C-alpha cells in the first residue's frame, strides 16, 4: 500500500505537465500568417463510413499530403440527417474559425423534413467540394427496360411504382418527388420505402419487395456489373462508365430534370468576411492539390467547386428548391 500514493503523485505531476504543454498551442489566431496557424477540426455530422465521413477524411488526408495544415482531426456527430451536428456547430463553435463541418444537399433535406430550427444559412459556407450522381435502378428481372417505361407508369399512377432508397427526406426521396412533379403526377402519392443505408436498400431491391431503387450511383455499381440490377438513368452527367458504357442521364431520356448530391465545407457563424476569405483560400488550395484529385478519383466523385458569392446564391437556390420538394412530398413536419 505504501508505495501507491507516491506512484500516484508522480503520475499526477506528469499529467499536469502533459496538460500544460499543449496549452500553448491554442489561443489567439495570428491573421498575418496564412490559415491555418494551428490544428483544425472537421466535424462529419454522420456515422463513420458514410458520405460526409469519407469526404471529411479524404479532405483531411489531402490537406496533410499537400502539407497545407498544422494537423487536423475528424470527429463524428451522428444523428437526424446531420441536423444535430449543425446545431452543435452553431451553439458551441460560433466565432471559431478552426471548427469546420461537412454538409450538403442531404442536410438541406433533413432540415426541412425534421423541422430543425437552425437553417444552413446560419453557418458560414466556405466551398462546395464534390458531387455524387444518383442512379435509378430496377431489379434485373423487372419489366421496365427504360426510364421512359417507368415514367409512364409513375405518371399514370404514382402509387404503382414502389421505390426503395435512403432515409426520409434524403436526396433519393427528393429525386423521386421531383420526378413525379416534372411528370405532372402528385409527389404525395409516390410510394417511397425509406431505409437506413445503401446496404439495406440494396437488399430490399434484390429481394423484389420494391419495383425500383434510387440511391447514390456508387451504391449500385457492383450489382449492375454483376447483372443483378439494371441502371435506367443517372441524375446528372458523369464521366464514368458503368458496365462498359456511359450511363444516360434523366435529361437524355427526355425528362427535364437534374439533381445531384453535392457536399460542401462550412465554418461556424460569427466570422467576418476577411476570416471567411482566409479559410476559403485554404480550402480551395487543398481542392486544387493533386492529392485531392487523387482522393476524388479513388471515391469516384465529380469535382464541384463553388465559393464566395456564387456559393451563397447556389445554396440559397438549392434551399428554396428542397423546401418546395419536401412540401410537395408532404413528409416531415
Amino acid at each position, binding site marked *: 500500500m505504501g508505495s501507491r500514493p507516491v506512484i500516484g503523485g508522480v503520475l499526477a505531476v506528469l499529467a499536469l505537465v502533459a496538460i500544460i504543454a499543449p496549452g500553448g498551442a491554442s489561443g489567439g489566431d495570428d491573421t498575418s500568417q496564412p490559415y491555418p496557424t494551428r490544428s483544425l477540426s472537421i466535424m462529419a455530422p454522420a*456515422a463513420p463510413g458514410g458520405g460526409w465521413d469519407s469526404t471529411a477524411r479524404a479532405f483531411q*488526408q489531402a490537406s496533410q499530403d499537400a502539407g497545407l495544415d498544422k494537423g487536423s482531426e475528424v470527429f463524428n456527430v451522428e444523428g437526424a440527417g446531420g441536423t444535430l451536428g449543425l*446545431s452543435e456547430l452553431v451553439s458551441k463553435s460560433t466565432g471559431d474559425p478552426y471548427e469546420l463541418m461537412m454538409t450538403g444537399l442531404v442536410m438541406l433535406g433533413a432540415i426541412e423534413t425534421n423541422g430543425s430550427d437552425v437553417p444552413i444559412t446560419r453557418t458560414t459556407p466556405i466551398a462546395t467540394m464534390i458531387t455524387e450522381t444518383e442512379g435509378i435502378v430496377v431489379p434485373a428481372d423487372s419489366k421496365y427496360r427504360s426510364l421512359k417505361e417507368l415514367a409512364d407508369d409513375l405518371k399514370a399512377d404514382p402509387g404503382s411504382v414502389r421505390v426503395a432508397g435512403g432515409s426520409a427526406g434524403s436526396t433519393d426521396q427528393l429525386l423521386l418527388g421531383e420526378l413525379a412533379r416534372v411528370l405532372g403526377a402528385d409527389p404525395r402519392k409516390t410510394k417511397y420505402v425509406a431505409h437506413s443505408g445503401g*446496404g439495406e436498400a440494396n*437488399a430490399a431491391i*434484390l429481394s423484389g419487395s420494391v419495383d425500383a431503387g434510387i440511391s447514390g450511383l456508387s451504391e449500385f455499381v457492383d*450489382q449492375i456489373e454483376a447483372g443483378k440490377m439494371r441502371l435506367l438513368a443517372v441524375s446528372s452527367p458523369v464521366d464514368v462508365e458503368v458496365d462498359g458504357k456511359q450511363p444516360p442521364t434523366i435529361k437524355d431520356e427526355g425528362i427535364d430534370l437534374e439533381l445531384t448530391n453535392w457536399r460542401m465545407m462550412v465554418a461556424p457563424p460569427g466570422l467576418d468576411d476577411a476570416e471567411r476569405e482566409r479559410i476559403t483560400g485554404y480550402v480551395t488550395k487543398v481542392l486544387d492539390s493533386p492529392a485531392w484529385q487523387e482522393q476524388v478519383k479513388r471515391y469516384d466523385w465529380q469535382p464541384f467547386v463553388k465559393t464566395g458569392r456564387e456559393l451563397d446564391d447556389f445554396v440559397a437556390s438549392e434551399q428554396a428548391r428542397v423546401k418546395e420538394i419536401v412540401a410537395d412530398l408532404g413528409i416531415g413536419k
Partner: protein
Amino acid sequence: MLVFAANLLDGFSAVLSPQNLLLAALGVTLGTLVGVLPGIGPALTIALLLPITFNFNDPVGAFILFAGIYAGGMYGGSTTSILLNTPGESASVATAIEGFEMAKRGRGRAALATAAIGSFVAGTIGILALTLIAEPVASLAVKFRAEDYFALTLLAFASVTALTSSSLVRGFVSLSVGLLIGFVGIDQLTGQSRLTFGVDQLGNGVDIVIVAVGLFAVGEALHMASKLRSRPDELVPEDPGGRWLSKKDWRRSWKPWLRGAGIGFPFGALPAGGAEVPTFLSYATEKKLNPDKEWGEGAIEGVAGPEAANNASFSGTLVPLLTLGIPTSATAAIMLAAFQIFDLQPGPELFEKESELVWTLIASLYIGNIMLLALNLPLISLWVKVLKIPRALLYSGILVFGTLGVYSLSGSVTEVLVMYAIGVMGFFMRRYDFPIAPVILGVILGPLMETQARRALTASGDDFSVFFSRPLTVILLIIAVAAFIVPHLPALKKRLAFGEDD
C-alpha cells in the same frame, strides 16, 4: 470440399509471414485496448486507422490489421461488460446481465475465459460456415423481405416470456417501457419527431448503449448506495490460484457456445439481422433450457451463449458483404470502404475475380481469432485485478466510465442526463423486482419490428394480405405464433395470476 480446403490452405500460406503475424498481434492488442475504452467501438477504430493503410502496398496487411482490431474490439467490449457492468456496444449488452453477477461473486476469471474461448469457438464455426456455405446462405438471405423480417422479430419477441422473472405483468410493464424508449426519435420512414418533447438531441433516438449503461451501471450503483449502511462488502475476492475454467465450467459452457454460434451466424447473414437480436435470443434460449441454474446470480451459460452468438454473427455479416457487396453493420461499412480503397469490389463477382484475396481475408480472420485467444487468456489474471479495487472507488469509477462512454458516443450532456434518468428508473425497477432484460429487448426489437411492418405495409398500400401472400412469411409467422403460445398453454392461466409458479 477439397477445393475449399486447398483454397483455405493457399490463404493461410499467404497470411503466414512474420510481418503479417506481427500485424495481427498489433491489431488484436490495439483492438482490445480501444475496445475496453467506453464509447469507441471497432467501427471508429478502423475508421481512424484507414488512412494509415493507404500506405500499404497490398491489401492483405490491411485486412489482417482490421481483422485483429475487430476481434480485439469485440472482446474488449465484453471485458467491460463483465468487469464493470458497462457494455461498450450493443452486441455485448446481453453479456453484462450475468457476466457482472459472476464477477461480483468472485467468478470474473471464469466469465472472461468463457467469453474468450466461446468467441474463439464460435468464430471458428462462423468462419467454417462462411467458407463452406456463404453462397447458398446469401441467396436465401436476400429473399427476405420486410414482411419476413417482421415475422422474425415476432419470433424473437416470443423470448420475452423467458426473460420475465416473477410475473407476466411486471415483465410486460418492463417491455412496454422499453418499447416506448425505442420509439423516441425521428421516425425513419416519415422524418417526423416522436416522443422527443421538443428536445433536439432526442431526435436521434436513445441509443441502446445509453439504456444499458443507465439500467446496469447507474442503476446498480444507486442500488448499492441505498444498501451501503446495511450490507457488508458485496464483492467476493477472486480465488487467486483459480484456473480459467473448472471442469464443471467447461461442461456448462460448451453447449451454449455451440448453440450461440448456431443462432448468431444466420442472423448475421441476414441483411437486417445484426448482433443484438441473436445475443438476446441466445440468452433467452439458455435461460429456457437451463432453468435450474443460478440465473440473476451469475449463470455462466448467460455469458457463454451471447458471447458466442456475438462472434458468430460477425462471420455472418461477412456473407452479404463478400457475396453481395451489402454492408449490414457500421464495421462492415468501413470494411467495404477499405475494399474500395484497394480497388476491390466486394459483391457477386469477388469470389471469382479475387478468390485468392477472399481466402486470404478468411485466413486472416482465423489468425486474428487465434491471436486473440493467445494474447488474452494470459491477460485475464491482469484484468480481474480491477475487481480488487475497493468498492467505493470501483463504483465511482464505473460511473465516470459510463458517463465517458455516453458522452463520447453522443457528444452531448443531454444524453448523459437521459442516461442518469434511465439509471434512476433502473434503481426502482431493481428495488421492486421488475426484470431488466425485457426493457432492453423492447428497445432493440420495438423499432425493428415496427419499421419492417410499416415498410411492408407502405409497399402494399396498407393491405395486410402482404403478411400472408408468400410461403416464407407464412411459415415464419406460424413458427412465431407457436413459439409464443405452446410453452404457455398449460401455465398461461396460472401465470396471469401473479407469479404463482415461482
